[in-house]
């Protein structure tokens, strides 16, 4: 059903994909310029590693950031939520299912993009062959999706109290904080070590940065374990917060205009 709905918005979808590819190209050319005329490492990354980072980023973005649940906030502020509340469906399950459908679609396209860009740009890409890293990478993606869903949910529930803020709260958190602190724009270990260590205690690096590092095999097994645990703990914390906020929000819900 969701997939059918996605395809009805073909143009939207294509435009979104185009934007995605441009983001990747910007990332690619920026770092290409940084490395040009230089050999060796910059910020602890080799040319090959940073490009792999970029390409893994495409897939990780497709897995983690492609969501339908960013409609939650709008639905609450315009009262469309009413429709959903009247039906015998679990609200969280409903959105997780819709997200899943959307993610599958995006992952397929993500691979096509990666394939295309590899053919065009012909970079040296590193493929992870160690099964431990590969499996923990998959695990870290699941943790990441869970964290992201709950961050989205929490910010989406703001309109229960302030309907006009449907868009603002989410923009601040998602577009600014998440985009910069998750590693979606640059690997966050280029920050000074003290800042980096503080960041690693927040939930954000576990969205993008940690999964990519695990894939690249640049974490030791201990670091992999620690990162998965901290990520999972954050997931549970955020999950219980978003559940609580949801319950409180429903009590003040007015179902305006419907």
């Amino acid at each position: 059903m969701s997939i059918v709905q996605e395809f009805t918005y073909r143009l939207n979808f294509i435009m979104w994909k185009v934007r995605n590819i441009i983001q990747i190209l910007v990332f690619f050319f920026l770092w290409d310029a940084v490395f040009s005329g230089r050999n060796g490492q910059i910020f602890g990354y080799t040319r090959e590693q940073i490009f792999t980072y970029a390409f893994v980023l495409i897939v990780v973005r497709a897995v983690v950031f492609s969501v339908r649940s960013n409609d939650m906030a709008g639905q609450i502020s315009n009262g469309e939520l009413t429709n959903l509340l009247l039906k015998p469906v679990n609200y969280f399950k409903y959105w997780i299912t819709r997200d899943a459908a959307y993610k599958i679609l995006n992952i397929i396209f993500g691979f096509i993009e990666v394939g295309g860009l590899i053919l065009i740009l012909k970079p040296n890409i590193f493929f992870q062959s160690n099964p431990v890293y590969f499996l923990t990478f998959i695990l870290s993606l699941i943790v990441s999706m869970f964290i992201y869903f709950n961050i989205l949910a929490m910010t989406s529930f703001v309109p229960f109290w302030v309907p006009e803020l449907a868009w603002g709260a989410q923009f601040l958190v998602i577009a600014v904080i998440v985009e910069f602190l998750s590693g979606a724009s640059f690997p966050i270990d280029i920050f000074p070590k003290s800042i980096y260590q503080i960041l690693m205690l927040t939930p954000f690096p576990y969205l993008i940065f940690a999964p990519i590092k695990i894939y690249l095999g640049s974490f030791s097994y201990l670091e992999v374990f620690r990162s998965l645990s901290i990520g999972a703990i954050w997931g549970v914390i955020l999950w219980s917060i978003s559940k609580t906020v949801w319950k409180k929000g429903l009590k003040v819900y007015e179902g305006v205009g419907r």
Partner: protein
Amino acid sequence: MLYTTAMDKAIIVDHLVKNFEVTVKEPGLTGAIKSLFSPKKKQIHALRGVSFTIQTGELIGFIGPNGAGKTTTLKTLSGLLYPTSGFIEVLEHDPWERKPEFLKQISLVMGQKNQLWWDLPAIETFELNKAIYEIPTREYEENLNELTTLLEIKKYVNTPVRKLSLGQRMRMELTASLLHKPKVLFLDEPTIGLDLVAQQKMRDFIYEYNRKYRATIILTSHNMDDLVNLARRVVVIDEGKILFDGALEDLTSRFAKEKIIRATLSSNDNIAEIDKIGKIKKLAFPEVVISVPRSTIAVAASELLQNFAVDDLTIEEVPIEDIIRRVFKGELKK
């Protein structure tokens, strides 16, 4: 039988209170900034202690002026709003818990709401509802066939919703809301915006549904015909309180302070004097219609007979439509 008393009450509402808190904003940018830093909150008392019970299979009309609390009541009954205080039970469930067993037995249809997916044909929404409500395929086929036949929309189910007319769309909405055969149905302005033919179709359908499935239906409407044709019992609500709860016919005796005298005169002598007896509603010789306070109706009638050349005289109640019209204007007080 032991269970009859409990089972026969589909809906029980006792001293239901619902308050909303709204932020008051002054107009303009400064107002917006002010309200951001020191929001002024205002309590709105949408429902102030509403009580009623509805038996299984009853079809009742909720009437009252805009903002009286009708929709708030329906939303609270369907579990959308959290009651500030009071007791509600619908089909032996607390609506607020929104248990799947409860939600599978009710439906709320609102005239201005759409649950249909705008860009897809209605059939897709029906299929989705089939899955959500876990309707067995055979039952689904039967219900769908029956509903689309009764509502005469069979040929449009594959048309994208955005290409349907309002009347067609409303009937699709109704179909989507009834596929799971709810036992309790809340209809909020089901005929709003429909043309006369479509309105009549909708009414016939509601009547049939109530009769055939013994469904309990609460209907709110500003459409006189909806109420007169469908509801045997009405609940009048204004400013969050119930003003009247009883048979539609009794609404008149309860609220009409006047009665109507209709007389045919044989001569027009002294005809100008007639306004001393009562308020003239119509004066077109030989016919006269006057309205007189209930308490003095006998006196007025005999005065009329003594002082004028009366051929024929009848005393009537004020038409029900007049009363309902006054309900909508919020003119009725306890």
